[in-house]
């Protein structure tokens, strides 16, 4: 698997698929039995490579006797920054992640979401070229998730490479140039979200309103929400359906293609993997 410079790469997979294990291998928290990995052309065993990477662990936990400002200053010291530079960067990064007002509070008083922000801050504090984030949206409220998404997009704009793991597929669809799907420890696919799900439409969907009591055969297939009806059909039946609706005096609100989502693709892979595992188990018996 290769992640190109400047791209946002999403690492997808169900729990236990091996996302965190892969990331831990990259940052030398665990060691491989075989194989090799390189970041920016340097072996992951080369400690100098860590000057250029930022890492956010999954569900981060930090020294709770420190304040956020102290924690960031502590981490910044390992990146050979001068005292003035450290102070400026810490101030700026705290502002960026929304912890400016809580910078003098000890981390033991932080909520899960605030710890996540502090974790993100320490990962990007030294302007790394490669940012590796393990479940960066985990534990965040919608506002926090939005802020993290904005930070990732900002990092991309600055030309940095971002690799992040997630099981929130909408985030991956929204942010990633490419995604890799890991199931059962194996990489099952790499590509853009569009490539992964394919471009073939699965049918059409019409959203419409119609007066009560109209004799409309389409209503038998439609689902109703309030005053509105939603009906799905194969593409070739679309014009016939529109004719029916016009004849009945219905108001067509929208006509849209039904496309498979990344979630569909993901679920298909996971289910195929489970089916294969079950088949092996049955034949083993």
């Amino acid at each position, binding site marked *: 698997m290769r992640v190109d410079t400047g791209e946002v790469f999403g690492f997808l997979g169900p729990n236990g698929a091996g996302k965190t294990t892969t990331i831990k291998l990259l940052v030398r928290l665990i060691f491989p039995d075989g194989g090799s990995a390189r970041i920016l052309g340097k072996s992951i065993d080369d*400690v*100098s490579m860590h*000057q250029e990477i930022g*890492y*956010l662990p999954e569900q981060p936990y*930090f020294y709770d006797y420190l304040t956020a400002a102290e924690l960031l200053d502590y981490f910044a010291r*390992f990146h050979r920054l001068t005292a003035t530079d450290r102070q400026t960067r810490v101030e700026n990064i705290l502002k960026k992640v929304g912890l400016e007002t809580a910078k003098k509070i000890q981390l033991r008083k932080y909520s899960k979401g605030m710890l996540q922000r502090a*974790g993100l801050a*320490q990962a990007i504090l030294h302007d790394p070229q490669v940012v590796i984030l393990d479940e960066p949206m985990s534990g965040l409220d919608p506002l926090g998730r939005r802020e993290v998404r904005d930070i990732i997009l900002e990092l991309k704009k600055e030309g940095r490479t971002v690799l992040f793991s997630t099981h929130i597929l909408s985030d991956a669809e929204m942010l990633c140039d490419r995604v890799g799907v890991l199931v059962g420890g194996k990489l099952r696919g790499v590509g853009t979200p569009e490539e992964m799900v394919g471009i073939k439409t699965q049918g059409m969907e019409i959203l419409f309103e119609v007066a009560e009591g109209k004799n409309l055969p389409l209503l038998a297939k439609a689902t109703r929400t309030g005053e509105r009806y939603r009906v799905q059909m194969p593409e070739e039946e679309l014009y016939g359906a529109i004719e029916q609706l016009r004849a009945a005096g219905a108001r067509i609100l929208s006509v849209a293609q039904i496309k498979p989502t990344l979630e569909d693709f993901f679920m298909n892979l996971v289910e195929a993997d489970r089916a294969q595992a079950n088949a092996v188990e049955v034949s083993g018996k």
Partner: protein
Amino acid sequence: MKNVWTVATNTFREAVRDRVLFNLVFFALLMMGAAILVGQISIGIEESVIVSLGLTAISVIGLFIAVFIGVGLVSKEMDKRTLYALLAKPVERWEFLLGKFCGLVMTLTVNTAAMAVGLYLALWTVKHTLEKSDGWILVAVYLILLKLALIVALALLFSCFTTPFLAILFTAGIYVAGVFAGDLRTVQAVDLSPATMNLLKGVSYLLPNFENFNVMGAVAHGRAVPGALVRQATLYAVVYGAVVLAAASAIFSRRNLK
């Protein structure tokens, strides 16, 4: 070495904020109580009682800190996963380990120095004066500190490959065995075969000989401590400590942090 210093100062800060130095209050109370009591009941032996009691307290309190906090230096970071973000920085694992060691030794140095001041105050309260020979107390305190540093190194080593509970047991066990290492070398038992005797002797040389650092008896009675003994004990602690820390680094450097 800058990374080692950064980790060490943070370890010291952790100890201060976790109120490790609060044990000094207990030591101060003990010394005040002893000074008052000894002044009332002892005749002529006030000084040796105070010095013995003070040095023993310095040693025992330091021992507790060295074992319990020493074991937690790495294991607590692994349990709480606080070292994950740190080890992804440009820091070698041996630098982290050495920094933790130095941080706790710094804490013990400050703690021991404060207790030594308390001991001198208690002594002054009893005698109303201090003599030149009382300076040997500082030598005894220095040797206690060397012993404590060695115990921290052992606690670190064990915590690198086993659970905190077992690491505490192993460190305490090695300490007790190390106190009797000298006796093991000279033991003469009629019912033991020569092979067993040689094995015991061999083991005794592997164990840290903590008796090398014990000059409490001499100092309590105002006797001088030979300079050669201090130099040998220092060299022994440095070499033995370096070997133990090197072993700990070798183990920790390949440990998977799951």
